[in-house]
């Protein structure tokens, strides 16, 4: 490990932290939509894998630290994962305790990170002996993963029913591109399909806007009201171990522990479950909500870190909702990474430890202190100056770019088609996890179907 590489890693971590501190706060930013494209682009530029991993770890920690902040300040979730916290954060806001809830959430995140980084490294090493067996059954496992995620989702039957048709759509387009010669035969278009699924819900709405009747019947709103509390100033350096009570500390630690072990389950699902478990046991509303948000934030952070690191170190196959979503580019970003040649194969155990540690320390070092002290100011800045239209435009631009790079003009149409179908499936209640798993398993599913007949 030479000093220039470490400097690059620190710089990458600092860049990731700054970018995702701001993006984390912007409302409505889905984790996959904001993390996956940027990581993909970085991988494709051919930066050192260890630098990219450091960037990614710092980014998820910063993003997870900040995306619950607008919940506390304005009751607007900064991301999908922060949505389960809204209910509890609003209780604290009603009692005028926004600043308390920010400090509790950010401290919970720090606990989650401190628990998850070493625990993931340990768990991953415990899994390594089994990795050969698991890798031999990659296709079956990905297909099983799609079924498992479908069964665990709230709308399980429709999710299950969607697997085969969606796989056929994906393979159908790939075979079309091979037939037309826009993509060499055997090369699976992946990156742009992935992004098409991610912004599917937006594509669907854009198409609906083209329908006059639909457009007229859409619910109209004035301006979104953002209610800010007058902020109390804090002096001195914040310390998560002092901000959290003993009970909050122990429940957060326990939640992080389970969040790491259960890395294969949906983080949002276990967060909601945890929230309900905690809420049913404590009576006082303020204490209940503080406990709920601190432990939820600890858990989401932990499950994000574990969900990235464990499959990456132990298996090299994206076997968790996080790995298949936001962290996807670390596993599969052809031509740089494929399932047979990705960070799992390139980086050593010490590399993983360095990347995780530098990423975590830099992200917490910057974001935790800044957020606890300046949460209100940062939120106001982002809410006042970053229009939602520009965020949507940015994602749309990136999708167009990567679609064109993957398969030319034809693929822009193909990605719009995938987005249209994926967005509709999303509206029917089929979550991203299932759709991403199908994207991975599609070649195997379709060839098995063909063999059967």
């Amino acid at each position, binding site marked *: 490990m030479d000093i220039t590489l470490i400097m690059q890693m620190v710089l990458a971590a600092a860049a990731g932290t700054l970018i995702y501190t701001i993006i984390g706060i912007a*409302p*409505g930013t*889905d984790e996959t939509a904001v993390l996956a494209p940027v990581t993909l*682009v970085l991988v*494709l*530029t*051919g930066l050192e894998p260890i630098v990219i991993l450091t960037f990614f770890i710092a980014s998820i920690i910063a993003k997870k630290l900040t995306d619950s902040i607008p919940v506390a300040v304005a009751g*607007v*979730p900064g991301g999908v994962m922060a949505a389960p916290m809204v209910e509890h954060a609003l209780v604290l806001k*009603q*009692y*005028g305790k*926004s600043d308390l809830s920010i400090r509790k959430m950010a401290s919970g995140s720090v606990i989650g990170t401190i628990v998850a980084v070493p625990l993931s490294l340990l768990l991953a090493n415990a899994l390594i002996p089994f990795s050969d067996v698991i890798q031999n059954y990659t296709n079956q496992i990905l297909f099983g993963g799609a079924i498992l995620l479908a069964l665990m989702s709230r709308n399980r039957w429709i999710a299950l029913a969607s697997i085969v048709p969606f796989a056929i759509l994906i393979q159908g387009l790939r075979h079309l591109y091979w037939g037309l010669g826009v993509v060499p035969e055997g090369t699976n278009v992946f990156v742009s399909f992935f992004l098409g699924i991610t912004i599917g*819900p*937006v594509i669907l*709405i*854009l198409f609906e*806007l083209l329908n006059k009747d639909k*457009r007229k019947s*859409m*619910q*109209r*709103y*004035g*301006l*979104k*009201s*953002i*209610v*800010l*509390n*007058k902020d*109390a100033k804090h002096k001195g350096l914040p310390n998560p171990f002092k901000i959290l009570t003993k009970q909050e500390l122990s429940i957060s630690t326990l939640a992080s522990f389970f969040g790491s072990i259960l890395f294969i389950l949906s983080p949002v699902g276990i967060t909601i479950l945890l929230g309900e478990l905690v809420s049913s046991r404590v009576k006082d509303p303020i204490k209940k909500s503080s406990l709920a948000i601190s432990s939820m934030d600890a858990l989401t952070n932990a499950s994000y870190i574990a969900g990235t690191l464990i499959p990456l170190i132990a298996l090299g196959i994206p076997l968790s909702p996080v790995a298949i979503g936001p962290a996807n580019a670390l596993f599969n970003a052809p031509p740089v990474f494929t399932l047979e040649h990705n960070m799992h194969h390139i980086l050593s155990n010490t590399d993983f430890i360095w990347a995780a540690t530098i990423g975590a320390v830099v992200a917490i070092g910057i974001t935790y202190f800044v957020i606890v002290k300046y949460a209100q100011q940062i939120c*106001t800045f982002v*809410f*006042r*100056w*970053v*229009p*939602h*239209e*520009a*965020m*949507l*435009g*940015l994602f*749309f*631009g*990136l999708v*167009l*770019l990567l679609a*064109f*790079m993957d398969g030319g003009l034809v693929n822009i149409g193909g990605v719009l088609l995938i987005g249209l179908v994926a967005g509709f499936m999303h509206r029917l209640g089929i979550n991203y996890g299932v759709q991403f798993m199908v994207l991975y398993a599609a070649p195997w599913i379709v060839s098995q179907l063909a063999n059967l007949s």
Partner: protein
Amino acid sequence: MEEKNQPIQEENIEVWADLVNIKDLVLALIITSVFTLGAYFIAPNEPPKPLYFGLIGSIVGFIISSILIKPKRKFETVENGDI
């Protein structure tokens, strides 16, 4: 909830958990797409330069649309402790 005589203020729609104005959204989509793809095509044809150019183009588009478009949010400040 039919308020046909409402003045034109109520014209924003909800997309992905926040409010947008349709015209502004179209403007933002056009600006970013043109800058992203434009930068990609003027880049020298040696990978990964087109990708870098496209990326920078998308960020320029993002900044320009942030300047041109006003967020559809309004702010109220309350004293701590208000319920």
